[in-house]
């Protein structure tokens, strides 16, 4: 007897049969790895180092400045580690990132033994030291992109996490309880639907004193849930009348149990698909904003803000090609994942298999 699979087990088996969708999933997994290991992949701060008898991990400073050990500020390193380490403590050692380039500043000459200064302005075409070139300020594009992966991923997950939560709750309440509650939920949905996301973001970023990437994500999330709410409502309306829900009611189940155990798990698959597509569009929105110059201020890097650098000088094609390709591939990957999910969870295809 072959093993019994639940719905998601079955869906995964069908998903696995689609090579393109699997490749897309692998690509996103690769991005997650790059984002988590970014400081160890590209940077000028040691991953681990021994300094004055103690072990430190200065690279954590890339995630948050406060994580950078205070001793290096006190000893006036000013972000330049190789020289200072050697000069101030001859007994020190360090494990360096794979690629010695900083995402936020230009690397000076001889900062790394034998390495020339990063070229700036329109001189920074791709080379061995700067494979994806450098921008006008001489900052390495590859390092910027590696660190920008975090933003690209966060934008998708956080904004769609917010949108998904709001959308599912609003849709579920409207669809399950019906009547005036549904009417209210639907009207709110329609009002939010009329809000132009991009304009709202620009307005809010202009008002806020110190706008961060989190504001952008929150706004995308809080305006992007309407489609999910409508879909959830539809699914709830459909499933509310299904016989197994009636059967659960006949068994004495209350609303919470019916919503959480019977309706929600069955409506999740169709909702997951637009969430995936939503991630892709959130990434595009963020890139667009950054391109227009409303991107996250340092110390955040974003692929879109690299593109922004090319606006004033179109001759710097590498500022368009590499981040553009990354955005394109990521958006494509999410769309392929969404499509794969759709095919893997489509009930019609499930039945056809029998």
């Amino acid at each position: 007897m072959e093993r019994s699979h639940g719905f998601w087990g079955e869906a995964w088996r069908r998903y696995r049969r689609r090579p393109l969708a699997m490749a897309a999933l692998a690509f996103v997994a690769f991005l997650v790895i790059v984002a988590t290991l970014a400081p160890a992949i590209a940077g000028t701060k040691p991953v681990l180092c021994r300094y004055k008898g103690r072990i430190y991990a200065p690279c954590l400073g890339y995630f948050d400045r406060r994580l950078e050990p205070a001793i290096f500020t006190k000893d006036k390193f000013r972000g330049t580690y190789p020289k200072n380490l050697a000069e101030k403590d001859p007994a020190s050692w360090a494990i360096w990132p794979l690629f010695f380039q900083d995402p936020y500043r230009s690397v000076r000459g001889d900062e790394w033994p034998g390495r020339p200064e990063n070229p700036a302005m329109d001189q920074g075409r791709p080379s061995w030291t700067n494979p994806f070139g450098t921008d006008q300020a001489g900052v390495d594009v590859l390092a910027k992109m590696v660190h920008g992966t975090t933003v690209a991923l966060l934008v998708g997950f956080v904004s769609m996490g917010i949108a998904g939560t709001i959308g599912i709750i609003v849709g579920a309440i409207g669809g399950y309880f019906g009547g005036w509650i549904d009417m209210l939920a639907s009207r709110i949905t329609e009002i939010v639907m009329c809000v132009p996301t991009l304009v709202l973001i620009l307005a809010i970023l202009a008002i806020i004193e110190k706008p961060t990437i989190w504001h952008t994500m929150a706004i995308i999330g809080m305006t992007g849930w309407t489609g999910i709410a409508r879909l959830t409502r539809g699914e709830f309306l459909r499933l509310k009348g299904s016989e197994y829900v009636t059967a659960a009611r006949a068994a004495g189940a209350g609303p919470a149990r019916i919503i959480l155990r019977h309706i929600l798990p069955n409506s999740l698959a169709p909702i997951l698909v637009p969430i995936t597509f939503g991630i892709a569009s959130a990434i595009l929105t963020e890139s667009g904003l950054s391109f227009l110059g409303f991107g996250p201020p340092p110390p955040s890097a974003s692929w879109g803000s690299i593109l922004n650098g090319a606006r004033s000088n179109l001759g710097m094609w590498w500022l368009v090609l590499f981040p553009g390709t990354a955005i394109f591939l990521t958006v494509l990957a999410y769309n392929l994942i969404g499509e794969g999910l759709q095919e893997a969870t489509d009930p019609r295809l499930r039945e056809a298999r029998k």
Partner: protein
Amino acid sequence: MTSPAPDPLVVVTDLETHFPIRRGLLRRRVGEVRAVDGVSFSIGRGQTLGLVGESGCGKTTVGRSVLRLVEPTAGTVSIAGQDLRPLGGAALRRFRRRMQIVFQDPYGSLNPRMNVRQILEEGLIIHGMGDAAGRMERMTAALDRTGMPAVAMARYPHEFSGGQRQRIAIARALVLEPEFLVLDEPISALDVSIQAQVMNLLVDLRERLGLTYLFISHDLSAVDYVADEVAVMYLGRIVERAPAATLRLEPLHPYTIALLSAVPSVDVRRRRRRIVLTGDVPSPARPPAGCRFHTRCPVAEAVCREIDPPATSVGDHLVHCHIAARELERCGGNAGAAAEIMAATVAAAAPTPVD
């Protein structure tokens, strides 16, 4: 009105369930569908009432209204002496253990995301029946009663055939040890060779567990086999009610007569002249005045168009028909003779079928 069955477990009196029709932006109520419009019956403990009728006659709504899965508009339902009407929220949910339902579509009535164990266990958890070991024992017993192996518990509904799924649905109902079961077209979605298996199972279970059934079906021969008493519904009303054999052999209502004659039979000896009713069932949103069947009745008279026929009963045979009532009176209450006259009259009046 209702002839009391010996020790009735279920008593339904003047049940009405109307669904509002809403239109427009403000969802204003513009009318109502009278799905069930004054239905009364009682079912004795351990007995089966069969409810037959065509789609849209309200038989499914009766089943759901009795269990308060849809809220009745009027009328009373009492089960084992408990009036269901005042029960609300938690009390009603607690009472649900004693009355269960099996649905028509074994593909739609089992949650596809739950395995059989979760499906069976849910009710036990809700009603706090037994600890983990006790629940397992009950579930195994329920599966065994329906002829399913205990290993089925780890599997999901889509891994089973229609007949097996229906057994699981029956096990889900049985595991709560109910007294009363509503069987809503339990065999209609199954293949012919599987229908007989499930009918045998239902009859066995009733005998072994002393269950009381409301068996809803459009299949006259199945109802006739399973039920002790049969009620025929048309447009939200019961038009005739009698013990199964009486209804089969001596139908009095023209609709019952036509319905019986329309069932295609493989038996050459059984084949009677098919009485073909003209037209379609009117909409329950606008039921005709007078007798609701008069628009399709081959023997309708002026009185049928005006006066809603009251119940006429001979012993345990009850019929709502002016013509049948007249014939019964003429025959001095001899239902057999009256049935013969009715059959002949209806057949003579019906448009001649082609063969």
